[in-house]
């Protein structure tokens, strides 16, 4: 289906939510990212939106000894009903060669907008999560992870 995400097809673009599609389109030139460029791109992506804090809990270690396996947990407080639920959570790492980490799409059937995964971090950097609610609200959270041995390979 999404066989080559470096060049997202038009159908893929349409299928994704607006924000995710925008993010995918931007990804190629985010490839040589720095903290500043990622911050600027995020501002462009979500700049017009009011970013709340508090509802989105981003759980990452303060210090990661091995950058190849860094636990990443996101948890959004929401009743998860058909009227009020979390549509998506996007996670970015601003010091990685490809800053997008994961995008989750939730539905009311999920029951709880929480998920855990393990990610790679190349160096010490900020992990940024943005939650998109069904009513159009956005929430963000940011946390720095100190990486002792970088992941992503040389």
């Amino acid at each position: 289906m999404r066989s080559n995400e470096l060049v997202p097809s038009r159908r893929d673009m349409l299928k994704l939510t607006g924000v995710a599609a925008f993010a995918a389109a931007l990804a190629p030139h985010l490839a040589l990212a720095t903290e500043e460029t990622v911050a600027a791109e995020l501002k462009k992506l979500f700049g017009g939106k009011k970013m709340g804090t508090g509802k989105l809990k981003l759980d990452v270690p303060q210090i990661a000894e091995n950058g190849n396996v860094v636990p990443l947990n996101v948890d959004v407080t929401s009743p998860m009903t058909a009227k009020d639920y979390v549509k998506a959570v996007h996670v970015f790492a601003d010091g990685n060669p490809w800053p997008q980490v994961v995008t989750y799409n939730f539905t009311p059937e999920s029951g709880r907008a929480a998920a855990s995964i393990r990610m790679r971090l190349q160096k010490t950097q900020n992990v940024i999560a943005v939650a998109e609610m069904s009513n159009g609200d956005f929430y963000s959270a940011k946390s720095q992870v100190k990486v002792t041995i970088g992941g992503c390979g040389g």
Partner: protein
Amino acid sequence: MAIKTKPRLRVPSSAKKGELIEIKTLIAHDMESGFRKDKTGKSIPRDIINTFTAAFNGKTFFEAHWYPAISANPYQSFYYRASTSGELLFTWKDDDGSVQTAKASITVA
């Protein structure tokens, strides 16, 4: 790398109606990021699982888009609110087009 090994699932076999269940999945895959170089300095092409979905009785309720920052042998945990008895279907889609699926059934009392 085509997906070859059987994914591992942890899903409760039964639940009460309305109960929130946690689902844990694990699949073996190199998740080659595309940023590594081999000994001769040549780039190793990207090959990752890019999409994971979970569906109940044919309806997708959770979707994860993975990028090269996801670790090898990806683990994913998430939640589902049990409503009726039925079948959960999990799908992993590889960059090369191959697809791996796994099923689990759940009984709701």
